[in-house]
Structures are given as structure tokens and as C-alpha cells.
């Protein structure tokens, strides 16, 4: 009997890089690798969870780590111990794949948002977010730009993800964390820190600096067309900026409050099906092959996502933008994967939108949101 087959569910941008790794893997072990191309969303995660107990789901799933809580609570993924092979990874990447004290995955990329500056329009390096707004306003007056800065929002759901760095700069983190950096289902967005942020949001809305109707496409297009000097975005927008041959610099988001502005870090990771058909080969593939720096680089090249391995990050000299993103990601806060986060997302964005649009008193709206979320948790 041969060593069989591995089935890996991956996105279309991951497959070219994975194919190179899989070729080496097959040469060494004889295990053939089949790819199932599917984008990760709520539906594909639900399908994986429904199919896994029947032994139908793929052996390996690549997913952002914020789905980890749901996958682990359903018992469909196996614990993955990297041991010494995890030493090369950044602390954020390792924390993100740990749930309830158990390590479940092998990370390959860490993403977060940062500030991108159009160097052709300005060379300013604002220290605080208010400085940035002032520079943006000056550019509007002097050079006739449309916006002081651009940032992705959603008129229906809001976009707390892109605004989180501003929120943390006031010290209002979403959940409390234990000494290992793992999140506890204890909401910490309230209090005076949260209220200060709510007031700041209301001010951003009142001045028109921040608009809830600015969807991702509108924000990106405006920046590419030179209508704004600063663009708050993740590394996924870089491809289009490169295509437009823009002259840009990436730097951390300047804080709006007294503390450091720390965005969310999203970690892309490999998870192993607990009821897969070939679990030993799957564990071998993720722990011994994906952890190699050259595999991490191959995935970086095919996806454009900053790698999770420090060695791989050091080998990206010809890509200053993404190197900068990788450096910023080290101080970012991993997105919570605990189930309580589901309750947060549904109220968080709509409350922020209401504040920015001036539909009520900011502190009152923020307090309502806190009590609604606490009611659901």
C-alpha cells in the first residue's frame, strides 16, 4: 500500500506557491497532493465543519486564524505541535494559532493594516493622527486633493477592523488578555477610554474626514488617482498600487490617543483535519514542510502576503513595502478568535457608523453597544 494522497483546500493565490512545496514533498515521501481551490468565507468554514465528522473534508485547510475558535469548538481540527520548528516564527503568529492553551496550526503569513503615503504628494511624516489630518487638510487646500486621507468603510456594516488602531491608541482594546496574550471573553472597550474613542469618531465624522460611505473600492481608487495623500490599508491593496507604479512609503498608523496605535493582525495558517483520511502525512506536511523558510517564501511570492517566518522576512530586501508591513505586524494585536467575537462584530460596526454619521450622542451609542454585546456574550 502506498503512502496515499493529501487533499489541501487553498485559495487560488496560494496554490502556485503550494505546488512548488508539494512537488518537493511528493519527491521525498511519495504522497501525492491534490488541491481543492476554494476561497475561505463563513460558508466554506461551515461546510468544512459539516463535512469533517463524515471524513469528507480535505486533510488540510488554509484559513485566517479568526476562524480558529469555531473550528476548535467543533472539534474538527487536530492540535499541531511545532516544537523547535516554531522558533523561527514571530510571537504574534504563534499566539494567533493558539486557542485555549492548545496550538492548532502552522502560520504562513501575518497581515495588518498600515498607513501608505503617496510620496509624490507629500514627504510629511505625521507623528499623531491629528497631525496627519492637518497635513491632509493642507494638501486639500494647496493641491486641491479630495480627501485628507482614505480608509475603507462600509455604509451597511461599518468597518471596525480598519479603525481598530485608532481605538487601541486610546487604550480601548476589545477583550482582556491573559499573561500569554490569549483573549478572555471579557469586554474592555467600555470605560473612559472607549468614550474618548467614541468622541474622536464623532469628530472624524463631523469634520467629514471619515465617511461611512467610502467603500474599499472607492478608497483605493481615490488614493491611486492622487485624490488623497494617505491611505490606511492592508497589504492586499499593494498589488494595485504597484500596478499603478505609485511612489509610496509604508509606515505605522499614527496614534490618535495617548498610546501606541496597534492594528489587528490576521494570521493565515494551515490547519489539520481531525478526522482526515491521511492525518499523519498531513501533520508531516504542515509541521516539517510549511515551517521551512523556503516554503514560507514560496507562499509569500504567490500570495503577496508578508510571511510569518522571521528568516523569510529577512530575505525580502527587494520589497520594502511588505517588509515594513511584516515589521508593523509584529506589534499588532492578533484578531480574537474566541466565539464572543462574533457578538462583537455585529454590533461594533453599526455603532461606529451611527457615531460617525452623527445619529445620536456618541457616548450613549457606545454604551448601548457595550450593553448589547455583553447581553449576547
Amino acid at each position: 500500500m502506498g503512502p496515499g494522497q493529501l487533499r489541501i483546500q487553498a485559495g487560488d493565490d496560494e496554490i502556485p506557491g503550494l505546488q512548488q512545496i508539494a512537488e518537493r514533498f511528493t519527491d521525498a515521501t511519495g504522497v501525492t497532493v491534490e488541491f481543492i481551490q476554494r476561497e475561505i468565507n463563513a460558508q466554506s468554514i461551515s461546510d468544512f465543519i459539516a463535512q469533517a465528522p463524515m471524513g469528507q473534508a480535505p486533510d488540510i485547510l488554509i484559513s485566517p486564524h479568526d476562524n480558529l475558535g469555531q473550528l476548535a469548538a467543533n472539534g474538527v481540527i487536530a492540535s499541531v505541535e511545532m516544537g523547535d520548528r516554531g522558533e523561527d516564527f514571530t510571537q504574534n503568529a504563534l499566539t494567533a494559532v493558539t486557542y485555549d492553551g492548545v496550538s492548532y496550526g502552522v502560520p504562513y503569513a501575518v497581515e495588518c493594516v498600515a498607513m501608505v503615503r503617496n510620496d509624490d504628494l507629500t514627504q510629511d511624516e505625521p507623528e499623531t493622527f491629528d497631525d496627519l489630518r492637518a497635513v491632509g487638510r493642507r494638501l486639500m487646500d494647496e493641491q486641491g486633493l479630495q480627501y485628507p486621507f482614505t480608509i475603507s468603510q462600509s455604509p451597511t456594516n461599518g468597518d471596525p477592523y480598519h479603525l481598530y488602531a485608532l481605538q487601541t491608541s486610546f487604550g480601548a482594546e476589545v477583550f482582556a488578555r491573559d499573561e500569554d496574550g490569549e483573549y478572555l471573553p471579557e469586554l474592555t472597550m467600555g470605560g473612559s477610554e472607549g468614550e474618548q474613542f467614541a468622541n474622536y469618531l464623532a469628530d472624524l465624522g463631523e469634520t467629514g474626514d471619515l465617511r461611512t460611505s467610502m467603500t474599499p473600492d472607492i478608497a483605493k481608487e481615490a488614493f491611486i488617482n492622487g485624490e488623497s495623500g494617505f491611505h490606511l490599508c492592508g497589504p492586499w491593496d499593494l498589488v494595485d498600487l504597484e500596478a499603478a507604479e505609485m511612489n509610496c512609503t509604508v509606515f505605522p498608523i499614527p496614534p490618535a490617543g495617548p498610546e501606541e496605535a496597534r492594528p489587528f493582525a490576521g494570521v493565515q495558517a494551515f490547519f489539520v483535519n481531525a478526522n482526515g483520511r491521511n492525518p499523519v502525512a498531513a501533520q508531516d506536511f504542515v509541521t516539517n514542510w510549511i515551517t521551512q523558510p523556503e516554503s514560507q517564501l514560496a507562499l509569500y511570492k504567490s500570495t503577496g502576503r508578508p510571511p510569518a517566518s522571521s528568516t523569510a522576512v529577512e530575505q525580502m530586501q527587494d520589497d520594502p513595502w511588505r517588509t515594513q508591513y511584516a515589521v508593523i505586524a509584529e506589534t499588532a494585536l492578533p484578531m480574537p478568535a474566541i466565539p464572543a467575537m462574533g457578538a462583537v462584530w455585529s454590533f461594533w460596526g453599526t455603532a461606529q457608523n451611527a457615531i460617525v454619521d452623527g445619529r445620536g450622542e456618541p457616548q450613549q451609542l457606545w454604551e448601548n453597544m457595550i450593553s448589547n454585546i455583553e447581553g449576547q456574550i
Partner: protein
Amino acid sequence: MASTTRSSAPEPAGNSAETTLPWGAGDSAPATEPKRAHSRGFGVGFVVKLILMALINAFGIYGIVAAFGVGSWAIAVFLILALIAANLIYFLPGRRILPAKYLFPGLIFLLVFQVFVILYTGYTAFTNYGDGHNGTKEDAIAQLEQTYEQRVEGSPQYPVTVLSSDDDGALALATLQDGQVLVGSQDTALAPAANAESSDGSVTAVDGYEVLDYAETVNSPEQLAELRVPVSDDPADGALRTADGSTAFAYTPTLTYDDGQDAMVDADGTVWADQGTGAFVSPDGEELRPGWQVFVGFDNFAAVFDPEVIGGPFLSVTLWTFAFALISVASTFLLGLLLAILLNDKNLKGRNIYRAIIFMPYAFPMFLSALIWAGLLNTDYGWVNQVLLSGAGVPWLEDPWMARLSVLLVNLWLGFPYMFLISTGALQSIPEELYESAAMDGAGPVRRFRSITLPMLMVAVGPLLIASFAMNFNNFNVIYLVTQGGPQDLDSTTGVGATDILISFVYKIAFSGGTNDYGLAAALSILIFVMVAVVSLLTFRRSKALEEIN
């Protein structure tokens, strides 16, 4: 299948003789031929039937074997019964089973795609199937024991080789330490092996054991998952477990299943007991995840009316759902009918071009149209506000009532071409003479419309309007793509929005926020089904009365 065999009926000469050559009618074949089952002779029809049945049998038997292979007994039994029935129906002689030959394929599809789905939804509504209650109790116990093992602090990483005992084939692990080969198995701790060889830092041979190669290692996942090799005689040192067959770590268990009390026991003595809720529960009420599926009776239905869950907004959402469905049907039908009447004038030049243009919205993919509409209605950047209203800033999707109006308008745009189409068809089928005689009797245009057009139209269109109502009642796509049910009611803990209809509300409750609750969703689906069924039944009665007028 029936039609193919019929068209290739045997003795075509006999048939044609009957119809075109009357003098050939003396032959007895044409008279008896239609009565004989055309597939019982050995003509072309029989061969075709034989091939088709052979394919069906082959496919069915493959399905049965596959179902047995994965232990799906219910599917296997269903396939066996269906296959036996198919063979009996198509091979048994006799006219009495003739109707069955036509009905059988339809019945099978009905069972698979309708009856099964309805029964399964009904079954799910009484379970707690959802996130955290995904599989069986055995799966949950195995997963909990596997997951809650703690790596012994400060313990090294062990490169290991998997061995198989020559005596009983039980697995063992070998590792190299300071050039010395250590071997251990399930019951015996790691100990130096007497006759062992190693090269390049890996164990190559051990006396009394066979060294497994890669293929053999990955092909014994169950044994490997259960294998725990004690590091030493001291349990505190932990036991080695390898997940990938080449690297092992020392673990101590933190949760173990106790058969006697049917509970998970923590390392610190906490007992997590099974209290029938589909999870192990600690004395202070905390639940272990994963749990498993159990029956919960009417709990899911009770949740619908529990104000803490969704009982609060349930009534207002139901009212809006009825309003949305009724207004959508009425507005699309009225606009469609109006345009159909206008373009029904035979004297109108180029009316086919107008018809084609009116039909356009129906030809676009509905998903695309709905998403584009959401963009057009954007308050600051949307084309409607920017160009049509020159920067008016109308909050199309942000104000509750404007958002309701917006989804109705988008749905009107999406839906009127269909109504236009069916109305045009129905108008053309009304006999011209009726209008002529009505005109002779002195009826004016309004009277003719009320007494002839409308009743005649409703007979043809009525059932379609009911179908359209049922479709709009569950028109998830338009709501989700245009507003996602928003704007959200900021005071409600359920996350309900102003434009949420029942089905989008169910989706929010049961699936959004990363937690799936299939049991609750199934219970709500059944309630929605009952509502649509009652409304349809009542209106069908009315449209039947209409038919009797005719």
C-alpha cells in the same frame, strides 16, 4: 426513457403501412402492435431499454457498495429498495404497472430532493445541531482527550522512528539519545535496546522489531494516534506521542474520560458530567467544547418566542415580511401589466424592440443588478445622489424607512419584466371576439378591462402571482445584497435591521457572527414554511373561485 423507446418502435413498416398504405392493413401486425409492450420483443427498443437498465443497475450497485463501504446504512437500504423496484417495474409484464413506468423516475427525485430534505429539516429542528454540537459523543470524547494533553514543560523534542513489534504487530517508538537507541511501547517506558543499529542520526534496525517506512507509518494513523510511550517510570515525565511519525513530544493528559461516571475528569479533579445537554458540564455550569448532537425537543421553537432570543422583533419582522412580499408582488404586477397593455396595441410600430428593452433587467444576472443598485444608492458617492439629484445626500440605505423604500424599488426594477412577460402572454390569449361583442353591447374601455381583461388575465396569472408572493416572502438575495437587512436597530440585542425579512433574520440569528445554529434555523424555516403554505392555500382557493366564473 419511454419516449425514446416509443420513437424507435419495432416494425416501422407496419406502422407506416397503416397510415399511408391502406391496402397493407390486411396484415395483423398494425392492429395488435400498439397493445404489445414495444420493449418485450427483441427489437431496437428492447436493446435500448436493456442498455439503460444495465447502466442504472451498474450505477446503483456501485452506489450500494460505496454506501456500505462508508457505513451509510440508510442510503444503502434506500438504494437497494429503489433498484429492486426499478427492475421489477421495467421488466415485469402486465399493463397494470404501466403507470408506474412513467411515475417511477419522478417519484425517486421527489423522495430524494423533496421528502428527504423536508424530513431532515424537521429532524434537525428538534436537535441542538450547530456549532459546538457537530458530531457524535464518541468523536467529542476522542477529540477532547487528544486535544487536552499538555506538553511537559521544558521537555525536549524527540526525533523518533516508528517500529512494529515482530510478535503482535503493535507499534513502538525508537529514538536516539547520545548515540544510544532507546525503544518504548504502549506499556513499557523508553529503555536502551540491546541490538539496534543507527545511521545519520536515525534508527535503522532494532532486534525484535520491524522499522516502518514512510508509507507504512502514514497508513497506520489510528494506532499511531493512540500510541503513548512513557518517557520513564515516573508518570510526571509524560508519555511520548507523535503526530507526524518523525517527531514526538512528551505529554501529560489534562482531561481523561471516566467510563464509570460517564464524565471527563480534569487533572485537578474537576468532573465534567454529561447532563443530557450534548456537552460535558462542570459543576459551575461551564461546558466543554466540542460537544455532540442530542434531541432537545421543542427548545428551538420555544426560542422563537423567547423575548431574550428573538421573540422581541419577531412580530415586527413578520409584518414587514408580509408587507415586502405583498407590495413587491403588487407593484411589479401593476407596472408589468400597465406596460403589457400599452405595448399590446398591434398598431404600435417597433413594439418588439420596446418589449426587448423592457425585458432587459430580467436578462441581467440578479446578483449583479442588486449589488450595482447598492452602489448606485450610496449616500455620498452613489450615482443616484450625485448625478440624478445633484449631490442631495439622500440616506437611501441608512434611514430605516428610506431603506425599506429602496429595497422595494430595487425589487420592482428586478421583478416587473417577469410580470410584463406573463401579462403579455396572457393578454394575447384573450380572444378578440370577446372585445368585439362587448363593444357591440356598448361597453367602454374601462368596463371591457374590468369585465373581460382582468378576470381572463387572473385565471392565467393568479397562480403565478401566488408563486411570486412565496418567492418574495423568502427573497433573501435582494435584502442581503442591497442592505444586508440594515440599517440595524441599535437598541435591539438581536442585531435585527429595518429591512430584515424573516429569512434574512433567520440567517442573522442562526449563522452570522461565526456561530451556526442549524437546529434553530431549521425550526424557523418550518415556521416560515407554514406561513407561506397557509397564505398560498387561501389565495389558491380564491383563484379557483375565479376560474369557476370563467
